[in-house]
């Protein structure tokens, strides 16, 4: 049985990666299991300078999901290169740096800096809903997506993944724009913007008022968007949004994903990503699949 997939010139031993922001830089979960057993690991979103993130309550629960408004708290790219990247690279897995910025030039500079390191791929977060200035602006309109992707492409000497926001009019247009700008792969979806209310105080529950929805409740939206993006572009797609089981992984692959990321599941089950990776061959057996690659995009429609 084959679980290995090829992504931007790298071989992932299985299609399971971790989703940015839910896995730190891997250290915490490496205490539970060897994170080298995963196909890939994606670190917390990085910015040029360290960021404190949002104040107040940053997480809320909703049926089958959570809302977060961390606001890109991170130690900055230099600290990452010095202190976190060597640890990640010491693991037998593909290492992805996730980056964000407030201006096109921020994105260019951080990607240029990371291109000088031994990080394997760079994932561009142009869709973080929790940063007031920036992020969102690029991710919403296809023109913005293309502009920032093209600018970054010019500076990027690593495979470039563009992570798409679901908070847009037409995901296929944005996927095409990223491809046109020069993306080597797409990942989707980021969180869906939502809100939670505290009846007692009559105030928003989250410090940032709005937050990003994730977890099992977003999976149907994510599957739909992965499918639409898959039909619109020819670059590989990394699917994510609510993945909790090996069956979920196979569903995303059928819709068009070459690899997947596990996010919120890590937060409530420290073994989630490994459990899903280990369970993959069982699920493959059950559905008579000998090579996961045969699934990619093979959804039978109409």
């Amino acid at each position, binding site marked *: 049985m084959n679980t290995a997939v090829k992504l931007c010139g790298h071989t992932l031993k299985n299609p399971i990666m971790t989703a940015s922001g839910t896995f730190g830089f891997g250290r*915490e979960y490496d205490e539970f299991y060897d994170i080298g057993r995963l196909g890939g690991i994606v670190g917390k979103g990085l910015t040029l300078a360290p960021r404190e*993130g949002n104040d107040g309550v*940053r997480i809320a629960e909703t049926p089958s999901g*959570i809302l*977060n408004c961390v606001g890109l708290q991170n130690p900055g790219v230099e600290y990452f290169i010095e202190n976190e990247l060597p640890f990640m690279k010491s693991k037998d897995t593909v290492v992805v740096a996730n980056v964000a910025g407030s201006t096109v030039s921020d994105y260019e500079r951080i990607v240029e800096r990371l291109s000088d390191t031994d990080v394997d791929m760079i994932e561009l977060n142009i869709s973080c809903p929790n940063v007031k200035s920036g992020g969102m602006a690029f991710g919403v309109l296809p023109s913005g997506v293309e502009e920032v992707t093209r600018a970054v492409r010019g500076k990027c000497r690593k495979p470039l993944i563009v992570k798409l926001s679901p908070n847009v009019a037409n995901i296929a247009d944005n996927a095409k724009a990223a491809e046109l700008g020069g993306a080597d792969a797409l990942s989707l979806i980021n969180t869906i913007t939502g809100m939670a209310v505290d009846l007692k105080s009559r105030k928003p529950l989250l410090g940032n008022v709005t937050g990003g929805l994730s977890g099992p409740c977003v999976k149907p939206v994510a599957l739909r968007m992965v499918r639409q993006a898959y039909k619109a572009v020819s670059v590989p797609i990394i699917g994510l949004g609510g993945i909790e089981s090996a069956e979920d992984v196979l569903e995303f692959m059928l819709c068009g994903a070459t690899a997947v990321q596990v996010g919120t599941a890590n937060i409530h089950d*420290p073994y989630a990503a490994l459990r899903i990776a280990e369970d993959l061959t069982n699920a493959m057996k059950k559905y008579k699949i000998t090579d996961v690659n045969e699934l990619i995009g093979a959804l039978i429609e109409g």
Partner: protein
Amino acid sequence: MKDYTAKVIANEKLCDGAYALMLETEGMPEVKGGQFAMLSVPPADRILRRPLGIVTADDRTCSFIYQIKGKGTEALTRLTFGDTVEVMLPLGNGFPKIECERLAVVGGGFGVAPLYLAAKDNADKEVRIYNGFATKSQIMLEGLFSEAGKLTVCTDDGSYGFHGFPTQALESELDEFRPQAIFCCGPEPLMRAVKRIGESRGITTYLSLEQRMGCGVGACLTCTCKVAGHNKRVCKDGPVFLSTEVYE
């Protein structure tokens, strides 16, 4: 820290709105006073685990007290003998084992949970414990705490023990007891009051903070609070912080 599938061996009502839960599992690790656990709750659509302070622990069992707050803790009350719970522990830094002769421990309501082990960890010192509750029927763990130091139970309405807040009980003994350190866990107003008392007297004071949590292990950055001007993770860098660094 490790994640265990533990068996419920007791889940009993302590008083109105409060339960005590005891879990059993093989190979329970050593627990420091002030550390906590993340417990799964029964409803399948409630995906986050709930943080609870560890009241007691040995190599086979651990116990908790919890207040019915919302959907998760409400569902916890329905667990019975033999049910299983996923429990990750021990988490957080816990109270330090400090060098001094006299330690004051101040708890309010469910905040008393992590203080028993914290007091026991410091059994080589003179420990005085001031635990406060709203009224007599809400008093918890009196027997347990009286083993860990000289206990003063306080009630806000005077229906039992010292009439007043635990801070008032502490203040009334400060000149005579002269504690060199204070440990506190409880509602924010209590912790702010203890911070004021400790700092005005130059007593090293540690507070155990509460924040909504996701992962409990330091990875998701959803549980932060301001510590010395920077956002720190309550689950990993805390929950216990020096009073001088928080509530500014």
